[in-house]
């Protein structure tokens, strides 16, 4: 099912004398989600991603704009008529019902022509439980399950009524790190298997990058960038997107461009063709550093950190906006921990320039 959002806007009115200004939670969201894709809505908390999800599922009404599922306008449709499955951040499993009763609950709501016989319901429950591999837990209460198992039950409950769209609100935030990795693979598998258009909300860029077909980066209700995860990572449109994506995060410097050359402090580090002169923010991905004895960039070494496959070098530089710079180089490059400074050359594709005024990306031509 293709989902189209047309100029979707949600404003919350100001409340009382203390907060008189209205809050624009989602501002003019315009996007078409292709059929059968897994889309990650990504942003820091308060950026409007959960509001967007609630608008799509119908728990909130948009202030303006329209929502289409396929060709149907569902903007004014109540949530129960939209055919959406929603998985809540805290799962919202009914604690007094068993897993089986929880999964069956949406089916028992069906009326008229859609009404199912007991046998059909039992079959559907088993099918949904099989999809998320919880057949053995059907007669337990949610309180007796681990977080990961509860998550699966919640997904099964959302899937059992065969929704046109599956929505997941922070699906992994309540799981521990190991389970998070496992469950996100699981979500990917279930999505592929069922082919249901799925939208999930997360503040964890790792999560979004790893399993999404498309990611939507939001900030303060405004969509910043939409694209395939790798594209967004390689070509951030502004400083916010560059800072938000990537672990370890991008290293930020205050630099200047003069005669198509980029300066960080005293160091003349990179040739940036076509970039206008002036002060700029410079973002350099951790993998954008090349350890060279005669490198152009002079940094004071704090310590190298060996992490098996890679070596991470923590250093400082006068132009850095952060207290330290973190660069990742391959383990073969030996760094003497006793040395006082290191020198780097930069990979031009991992270096981004941003305007100091509107923080937008300043393109430059890379000399081959």
């Amino acid at each position, binding site marked *: 099912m293709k989902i189209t959002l047309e100029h979707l806007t949600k404003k919350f009115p100001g409340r009382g004398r203390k907060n008189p200004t209205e809050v624009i939670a989602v501002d003019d969201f315009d996007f078409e989600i292709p059929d059968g894709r897994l889309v990650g809505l990504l942003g820091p908390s308060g950026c409007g991603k959960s509001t967007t999800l609630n608008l799509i*599922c*119908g*728990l909130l009404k948009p202030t303006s704009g329209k929502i289409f599922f396929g060709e149907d306008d569902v903007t004014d449709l*109540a*949530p*129960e*008529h939209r055919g*959406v*499955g*929603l998985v*809540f951040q*805290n799962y*919202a499993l*009914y*604690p*007094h019902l068993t897993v089986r009763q929880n999964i069956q*609950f*949406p089916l*028992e*709501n*069906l009326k008229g022509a859609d009404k199912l016989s007991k046998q059909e319901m039992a079959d559907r429950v088993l099918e949904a439980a099989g999809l998320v591999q919880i057949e053995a837990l059907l007669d337990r*209460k949610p*309180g007796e399950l681990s977080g990961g198992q509860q998550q699966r039950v919640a997904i099964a*409950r959302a899937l059992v*009524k065969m929704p046109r769209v599956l929505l997941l609100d922070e699906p992994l935030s309540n799981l521990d790190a190991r389970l998070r990795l496992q469950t996100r693979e699981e979500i990917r598998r279930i999505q592929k298997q069922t082919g249901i258009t799925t939208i999930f909300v997360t503040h964890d860029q790792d999560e979004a990058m790893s399993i999404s077909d498309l990611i939507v980066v939001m900030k303060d209700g405004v969509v910043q960038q939409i694209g395939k995860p790798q594209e967004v990572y390689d070509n951030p449109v502004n400083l916010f997107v560059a800072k938000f994506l990537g672990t370890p995060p991008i290293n930020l410097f205050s630099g200047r461009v003069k005669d198509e050359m980029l300066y960080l402090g005293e160091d003349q580090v990179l040739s940036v063709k076509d970039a206008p002169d002036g002060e700029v923010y410079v973002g350099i991905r951790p993998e954008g550093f090349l350890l060279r004895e005669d490198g152009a960039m002079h940094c004071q070494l704090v310590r190298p950190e060996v992490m098996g496959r890679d070596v991470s070098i923590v250093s400082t530089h006068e132009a850095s906006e952060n207290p330290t710079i973190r660069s990742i180089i391959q383990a073969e490059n030996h760094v003497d921990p006793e040395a006082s400074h290191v020198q780097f050359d930069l990979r031009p594709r991992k270096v981004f320039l941003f305007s100091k005024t509107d923080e937008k990306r300043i393109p430059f031509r890379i000399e081959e």
Partner: protein
Amino acid sequence: MEKNNARGFLYLIPAFLFLGAFLIYPLIDVFVYSFEEGYNFASQTYFGVGTYNYSYVLHDPYFLQAVKNTLILVIITVPVSTGLALLLSVALSSIKPLQDLFQTIYFLPYVTNTLAVGLVFMILFKKTAYSDGLVNLLIHAFGGSSVDFIDGPYWAKMFVLCFYTVWVVMPFKILILTSALSSVNPMYYHAARVDGTSRLRIFTKITLPMISPMLFYLVITGFIGAFKAYSDAVALFGVNLNAAGMNTIVGYVYDMLYGNSGGYPSYASAAAILLFIIVLTITCINLLVSKKHVTY
């Protein structure tokens, strides 16, 4: 751990002492009195030991009337007040504007003096030489003939007593239930809405089970409270409840101790122990039932 245990008991001693002196000891004492025939407070003497007190009380028509009154009161007021309180709480929680104001209004009767409320009910229901009372005026307006609610037929009096009791116990129940309702996480309602659950089904399948512990707490305390009813009857019908035929078990105990026919602590004790047994039995049944139905 051992040391902590000893210390823990040390902290509990004051509470134990008070409970022992003012609760356990009197309870045992009442139990003992109930088997001592013709016990006299002043001379601390009695004629003999046996079950005569129980036999007397159980054959006393006033006591049987009191038991009947109390049982009718319990059976009518507990379900009615709990059900009404549930309805009102659901209604109160679903309105948005002025919710706090309404909750305060509904709680006001709780802080009002029982006897003052009794006075108001007298004015509403009592038939005097000058006026038939407000309720009778209403009955007239609808073409009925007036009923004497305070000195008239038994069922009229019982109706007033039940009405009064329900009205008095309601605020506390509404308070408990509105807070129970507001403690249900709204995400359950959201989940149910997305799944297309009807409002009735949301109420019976989600709301009710979620607040069932509070509901059973109210039923149990409601039963106990109704069994101990006394001041309500006095407020409406005056102190001579036996004459009015509206005595309750606690009223009977009081009359046996201090009333005009008073001065019989042995009978009073026996009646008190009988009440204790009734309340204990009902509470046990309640707990057994709630274990089956309060599922979480």
